[in-house]
């Protein structure tokens, strides 16, 4: 129940329904104190957390070491004997209608997705986090303006803008990454602002100010360390969101260039084969995306719950 417990958030003139929704996502304050939170503290990390961590480790490892692993080249190598062939000993995930190895594309596609996800989120969190931190700390007219701008920008369908920019600019890994990173800024700023608000008026901030600390010092030494942990949990979910967006763009034909392996373009290739007995082309990258997103969400969610409890105890 974000509203009653968050008078700070909703009392502002610029607060909108979406902002309250953002507060829900950050897991605002006491609202996270559900009945079973006490058990979370005593329970060890859930099994789903470890499964997700293992999944994620495998995906990251495969993406990083793909070049040294005995995979065939996802673009150059093709097997004319096996066009759109199902999984076999030779091609574990089967082949595409061009005879390319699906497993190789999925592994190399993981690298593409991770690069875009990590760099775009880093970009979005750096600028969005800074904006949200400053707006939430100083409040006043600056906050009002920033919040209003965020509200306005969030009215635009981000994926459509990304699609437009990437298709007009021409497909490239850099363009996709920067575009998705910039489009993430307003959403990140909103979450960072909501998180900052919870601390900006706390006693230790007041104490630091009273002791003569500068605003800059208070923001970076007192507020930031508290905001970083929930934001880190959010950033994992954000990586998942960006990876989905990257795949979606590639599926729409406006992602990374055609010769860069990507889950989205593989799904696009495979959609036409769904009813031709070669569903594996579409379903393997789909499964890879799902597992990655699930793992990131689970780990992010577990950390968020942990953090809420920790704060409740303090």
């Amino acid at each position, binding site marked *: *129940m*974000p*509203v*009653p*417990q968050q*008078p700070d958030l*909703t*009392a502002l*003139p*610029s607060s*909108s*329904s*979406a902002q*309250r*929704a953002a507060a*829900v996502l950050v897991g605002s304050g006491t*609202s*996270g104190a*559900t*009945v*079973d939170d006490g*058990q979370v503290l005593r329970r060890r990390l859930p099994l789903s957390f470890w499964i997700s961590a293992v999944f994620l480790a495998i995906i990251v490892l495969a993406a990083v070491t793909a070049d040294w692993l005995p995979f065939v080249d996802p673009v150059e190598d093709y097997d004319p004997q096996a066009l759109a062939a199902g999984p076999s000993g030779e091609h574990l995930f089967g082949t595409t209608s061009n005879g390319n190895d699906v497993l190789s594309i999925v592994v190399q596609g993981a690298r593409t997705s991770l690069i875009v996800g990590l760099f775009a989120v880093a970009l979005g969190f750096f600028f969005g986090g800074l904006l949200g931190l400053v707006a939430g700390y100083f409040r006043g007219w600056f906050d009002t303006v920033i919040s*209003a701008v965020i*509200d*306005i920008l969030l*009215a*635009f*369908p981000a*994926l*459509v*803008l990304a*699609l*437009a*920019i990437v*298709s*007009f*600019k021409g497909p490239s890994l850099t363009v996709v990454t920067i575009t998705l990173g910039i489009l993430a800024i307003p959403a990140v700023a909103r979450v960072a602002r909501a998180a900052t608000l919870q601390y900006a008026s706390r006693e230790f901030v007041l104490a630091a100010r009273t002791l003569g600390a500068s605003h800059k010092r208070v923001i970076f030494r007192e507020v930031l360390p508290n905001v970083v942990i929930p934001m880190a949990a959010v950033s994992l979910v954000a990586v*998942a969101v960006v990876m*989905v967006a990257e*795949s*979606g763009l590639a*599926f*729409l*034909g406006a992602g990374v260039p055609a010769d860069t392996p990507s889950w989205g373009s593989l*799904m696009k290739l*495979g*959609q036409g084969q*769904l*009813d031709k007995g070669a*569903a594996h082309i*579409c*379903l393997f990258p*789909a499964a890879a*995306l*799902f597992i990655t*997103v*699930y793992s990131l*969400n*689970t780990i992010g*969610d577990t950390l968020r719950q942990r953090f809420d409890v920790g704060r409740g105890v303090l």
Partner: protein
Amino acid sequence: MSYFARKIGFLLIVLVAVTFLAAALIRLLPGDPATVIAGASGATEEELDQVRADLGLDDPLPVQYVGWLGDAVQLDLGRSYISKLEVRDTISDRAPVSFQLMLYAQIITLLIAVPLGVFTAYKAGTRFDRTANGITFAFLSLPNFVLGFLLIYLFAVKWNLLPASDYQPLSDSIGGNLKGLLLPALSLGLGQVAVYSRLLRVDMIATLQEDYVTMAKAKGLPIRRVLWRHALRPSSLGLLTVVGVNVGSLIGGAVVVEQVFQIPGVGLGLIGAIQARDYIVLQGLVAFVAIVYVLVNFSVDVLYAVLDPRVRHARASAA
């Protein structure tokens, strides 16, 4: 009613800003629209100038905006250079399709999420609660187009129960319309079950600890009645908010799902406009989507204030 006056004032500012950005979109996107529109190679300098004048690209941005806005308030959003169709007609053809899809998706989500939220709150901490949470969370992690592929594979290819892509207007056949939109609506809706049911669960748990709920139980009312008649309504405000946000964004936001199932809605229109470099249509559709989003959010805020008087009056901390 200073709350509403302030809200409406803010709404107007947001609408101006949103339409300004939409009008400026032609300039913000990379590339020279005049060259693209007049045909990349063959156009003479005169033709290019004509296109620039039509689009107002020669004028300073504010002048261009005022011109665009003047036309737009008369519902004249221009005409596609490619299909020669009025953008207004494109919107009135496509918006109802996206609206139906959004509506079906929300109905599916709420039909599952509300009972689930109520019961998981009642059974909070039990095995049922954790299982429901785990399953809905998995669906939340399933990107809607990935779920779409899975549903197509299962329902259309393997079991041959539903069409993979067969949109029929409501006026042609109600059954056909429902059949064609069921899989896309499921793709959009199932993931949101987790968001809605979790939100409702948290709010319900708080409500169930209220004295009047204890009182109702002590009176001997059946628990079913306590949950549904006494506790659900005061717990549903947070849910209402998020439903509102989703409704607003789904009208233009179902881009990928509309592409997967080839549903001729706003999303597919946006993709088509981008692929064809149809600047005028893109501009009109983006403005439409953004305006709808802003208006829906505004309505939710107002509805919220009507339902919960505490929002209207500058209220003290009500924890």
